[in-house]
């Protein structure tokens, strides 16, 4: 089952050495993340974990990929190929290469994702690469932090660093780093985080060396071949168990931030043939004027990672290049999923990155209903910058606190907690208390809103109401990482869509609506309000166990009205006892399912009135 051109392998490798080496690489990646969270100072990297790590073979094959953001690391082999081309014989032990460029051989999803890549040599031979990529505090450009719309071209989005040696055989190239740091904001903070990333690649090198010293490079190579083959066989068996055919999915973002209020579509055909799968995005929209364009490596990473999601959870800890081999991704050049220089790409990790995951999981939900996953709440992010009047220093802040929750899966409700589909639960929220110490915003609310999710036989996790008061100076916010005011997470297998989300700024008693992909000025005393819907549902809500509906009402996750009108479950308003007879009547009566809507004056969430 091995791909042609692969080196011959020893099928007799002993299983104990194999699993020891396998776990050794997995553990290395987990420890790298741990090291980053302990040493970075960026809220985004250390607390929210917007970063990725991994180990690749010298030929670019993925050895270990236990954790990260799909677009930040699953397509790293493209960067490795170009780095090997560019540097040829000029790679040496102790080198570290920095790149954040989506184009010119960097293959970064967007400019704020700085990746430090270290070649790992052993006994004089290039054996592996390791990568640490994190969303840094700033990358220059016309607004701090990233995710701002309307850049003229990629250069307006910030400093673009093609693969560049920043550490040469162990010594830092200070003039190069000085040039780079001179072109970004928060220089000292950036230096701390870059040191942490470089040190983490050095740590990975030490750990990989330990494995190589223990077993020898040849044995480790054979183990990796065996790892990749075993995973490939398992993934091929998973694909083979899906009926051959073409399954379609589609999702759109609200707009591209430049051409306003015009949705941008991602469309996929998942073609299953035997034990191989093709994800064909050819019918997606063309490259856009606005910043939702995605480079191919990022499209590839998100697409294959999303396809893996529905596979046997027993494989979850073991994915590697073998999982990727049977999957082909097609996205024609010049499309929004394979954009060309000098396209703007700043918003693309969210839009259209999340749309890729939504489209692929939708298509696979038709292919394998028993592994259906409904889309999660949309990311409702923003980058807010301004002056912290407590210390006179500028700040840039972003967060995941205000995101809705996970979508349902076949068999399980979605979890309630900050989550967006592109991140798959890898990112975390910060503590309100920590955020209040660091940023001049006082959080006044972070609470689940009843009914504010997609209903279903299995329902999505709860949507949230998040509010914070600006206690600092004037500032601006970029809502480039938000989505979902118009285009909502779609329910699958008859599950309900998640409701629309909204963001407002309340100023002097007036509500100013702020759409995704916009810029908004902020004043002292502004109250920012985010009503972020939860995940979508799986299966018809009228098939949900009435007892679970009763529990949801008791828990104030679902209203009595929604229980009756959406789930078809009649409860006594006082005792919450189930009225079985009335429930049977409600469930038998066919009728349109009422939508969940936000009252934009009172900021409440309720069921659409009966017609």
């Amino acid at each position: 089952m091995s791909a042609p051109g692969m080196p011959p392998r020893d099928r007799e490798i002993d299983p104990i050495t194999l699993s020891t080496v396998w776990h050794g690489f997995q553990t290395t990646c987990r420890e790298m993340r741990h090291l980053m969270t302990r040493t970075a100072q960026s809220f985004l990297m250390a607390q929210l974990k917007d970063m990725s790590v991994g180990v690749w073979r010298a030929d670019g094959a993925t050895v270990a990929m236990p954790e990260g953001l799909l677009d930040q690391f699953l397509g790293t082999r493209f960067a490795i190929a170009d780095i090997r081309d560019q540097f040829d014989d000029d790679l040496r032990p102790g080198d570290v290469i920095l790149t954040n460029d989506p184009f010119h051989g960097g293959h970064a999803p967007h400019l704020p994702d700085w990746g430090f890549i270290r070649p790992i040599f052993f006994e004089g031979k290039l054996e592996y690469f390791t990568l640490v990529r994190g969303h840094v505090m700033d990358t220059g450009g016309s607004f701090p932090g990233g995710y701002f719309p309307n850049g003229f071209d990629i250069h307006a989005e910030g400093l673009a660093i093609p693969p560049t040696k920043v550490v040469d055989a162990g010594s830092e190239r200070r003039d190069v780093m000085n040039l780079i740091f001179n072109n970004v904001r928060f220089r000292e903070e950036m230096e701390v985080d870059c040191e942490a990333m470089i040190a983490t690649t050095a740590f990975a090198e030490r750990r990989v060396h330990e494995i190589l010293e223990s077993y020898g490079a040849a044995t480790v190579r054979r183990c990796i071949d065996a790892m990749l083959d075993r995973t490939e066989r398992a993934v091929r068996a998973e694909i083979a168990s899906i009926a051959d055919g073409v399954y379609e999915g589609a999702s759109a973002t609200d707009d591209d931030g430049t051409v306003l209020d015009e949705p941008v579509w991602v469309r996929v055909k998942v073609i299953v043939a035997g034990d191989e799968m093709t994800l064909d995005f050819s019918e997606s929209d063309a490259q856009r004027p606005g910043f939702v364009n995605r480079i191919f490596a990022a499209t590839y990473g998100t697409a294959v990672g999303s396809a893996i999601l529905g596979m046997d959870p027993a494989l979850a800890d073991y994915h590697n290049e073998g999982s990727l081999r049977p999957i082909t991704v097609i996205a024609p050049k010049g499309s929004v999923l394979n954009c060309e220089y000098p396209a703007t790409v700043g918003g693309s990790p969210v839009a259209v990155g999340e749309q890729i995951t939504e489209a692929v999981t939708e298509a696979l939900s038709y292919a394998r209903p028993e592994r259906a996953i409904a889309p999660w709440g949309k990311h409702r992010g923003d980058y807010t910058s301004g002056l912290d009047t407590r210390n006179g220093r500028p700040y840039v802040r972003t967060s995941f606190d205000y995101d809705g929750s996970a979508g349902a899966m076949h068999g399980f409700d979605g979890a309630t907690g900050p989550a967006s589909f592109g991140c798959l639960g890898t990112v975390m929220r910060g503590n309100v208390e920590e955020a209040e110490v660091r940023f001049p915003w006082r959080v006044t609310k972070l609470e689940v809103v009843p009914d504010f999710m997609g209903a279903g036989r299995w329902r999505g996790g709860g949507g949230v109401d998040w509010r914070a008061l600006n206690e600092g100076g004037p500032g601006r916010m970029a809502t480039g990482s938000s989505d979902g005011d118009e285009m909502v997470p779609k329910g699958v297998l008859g599950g309900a869509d998640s409701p629309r989300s909204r963001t407002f700024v309340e100023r002097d008693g007036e509500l100013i609506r702020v759409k995704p992909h916009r810029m908004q000025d902020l004043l002292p005393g502004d109250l920012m309000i985010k009503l972020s819907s939860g995940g979508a549902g799986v299966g018809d809500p009228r098939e949900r166990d009435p007892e679970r509906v009763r529990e949801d009402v008791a828990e104030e996750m679902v209203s009595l009205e929604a229980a009756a009108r959406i789930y078809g479950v009649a409860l006594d308003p006082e005792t919450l006892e189930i009225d079985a007879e009335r429930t049977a009547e409600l469930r038998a009566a066919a009728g349109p399912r009422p939508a969940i809507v936000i009252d934009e004056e009172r900021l409440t969430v309720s069921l659409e009135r009966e017609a």
Partner: protein
Amino acid sequence: MRIAVDIGGTFTDCVVEDGATTRLVKSPTTPDDPVRGVLDAVAKAAGAEDPAAFLGRAERFVHGTTLATNVLLTKRGAETGLITTAGFRDVIQMRRGIRNLGTSMFDQFRPPYEPLVPRSRRLGVAERTLATGAVETAVDEAEVEAVAGRLVEDGCESLAIGFLHSYVNPENERRAKAAVERAAPGAYVVCSHETLSILGEFERFSTTVVSAYVGPAVSAYLGELERRLGEAGFDGSLLIVISSGLMQTVEECRMRGAELLVSGPAAAPTAAIAAAAPLGYASVLEVDMGGTSFEVCMIREATVPTTREAFIGEERVATETVDVNSIGAGGGSIARIDGLGLLAVGPRSAGADPGPVAYGKGTEPTVTDADLVLGYVPADYFLGGELRLDVDRAEAAIAELGAGLGLGAVETAEAIFETVTTSMANAVTEVSTKKGHDVRRFTMVAGGGAGGIHGAAIAHRLGIPSVIFPLSGPVLSAMGMLTMAVGQELSKVGVWDRLTVAPQQLEEAFAMLEAEAREHFARLGVAASDVALARSLSMRYLGQFHEVRIAAPAGALDAAAVERLREDFHACYLELYGYSLPWRGVEILEAHLRATAEEEAAAGVAPPGAAVAADLEAARAGERSCLIGGERREVPVFHRDRLGPGHAFEGPALIDSEASTILVPAEFAARVDERLNIVLEQRRGAGAGVEAAGDRMTMAS
């Protein structure tokens, strides 16, 4: 006389230090009434003496129990409610993210997390304290009373109070607590600032809720234990092991349920230090392999390490806890073939019931079955012969598993042994490398019922040069309880400017903590002169999210002393992470004080002497057929009771005792020291490195 009792999943261990002699006893745990098991163990230890007279002679009774952990993991805690800042009732449900740590991002098909307190019992009240400590909205006591009343009406017997920023100003929480106590007399009430005064509402609220959840059961159990020990004749001081590795009175523990969650394992590292320190070892890896779990603790400078980052099951518990890492690998761990065709061992365990196949009931092969088939475990002397093991049954089950791998029974048993050893070795590596330390510079102290057989194999795998098996190894935790100190950990979060904190402000913070500690010990009747105070500071580079604990000097602090602390921080950071940033500002976040009562430590296990054989040959109990280096060999078996100081021999060998067996692999030499520790040293092969035949590990030069 001092008595220590540790209740484990299968056995209740008891150690008695009686003048110059020490007794070690294992007795079955009685889950339906754990106190009965405690009294049984004491009676067994009393031997011929009247148990009441025996207990009456004890000045101190130290106890560790997994009760709180069991209550938490089996969800049998109190009906609990949470009163919190309005608008933040879902903090404990949202946690810091939707996935538990350690779960793969590709493993989504899992039920959503369910908090210990359901949403309908998490109620907000209007109140707010700011990050500066200023009270923006004072709590309305009438509202709190009304809310508490509703929760009690709904059936809550335990109430947690968690307000934002209470770590800097607990005023609102204090007033709310008083109101709750008025509205809900008899309820168990805990506040977040009392449970754990740290910044970070999720960790603080979560820990407080866990404390409220397990607290009533803990309180009832400790009350019961105190009463029945008294009735049985005990009138000394009863002390309970807490997670931080110290001991506390029953009264202090009753409102601190979360601090009993690691009550048992927290004691073992202390015993390991006591065993290793006299031999001159300060860097120790303490490993404890029991029936279901393997625990490892990395000890540096003879100091028990603690952490605030623990999860117990799905619950985040952020109290200062002995940093013991646990994985599901023990004698009862079940071997199976996973989805990728690889042999996997654990984390599922056959436990005490049905137990390993060889016990006669179980059907899935376990590590103990493999150890038996390999000849390491004696079939006729397991637990001193109390339990006869069925070798044929174990071998049949292992053969069946092996068929799926194309391996015979013995080869499969070997693979199980190797696999579980690898898992444990990885756990050791993870613990040490996470902190940047090379395991090969450490000495291992191995304990637990199965630690004797697997300890040296792990050490061999990792290149750890020597392994100590203390006489108390099989009851390591109980032994540790005799060498622990009474005391507490106190912390103060600074409200000072973290970068430019003045020496005087630190001084004030320490003075406050020291006054609190002295008051605490005064209540226990300990003289101020007998209280040892150890200061430390949490420091980090400006803006980071994790701190490094740096020891601070006693006495007055001046600017130069603070500067030295910053230098210590740079050095410590460099050692931990491989780089430092001398140009970056260093923040000081918290002042800590560890206050302990100074007293004479227990002497450790004294040699009973009587049974010791005159020469090594007389200590031999025969031979056993074992698999060593892939071959069946007749291996000499020694009886531990007959081994005495000066006895020395080379592996392969086995050492049987009533409570456990020690395997001395071929690559090790064993000797017995004055304290009757068995000390194994890896034999030097060719050159300086370990390059024994078939050895995969090469030591770095």
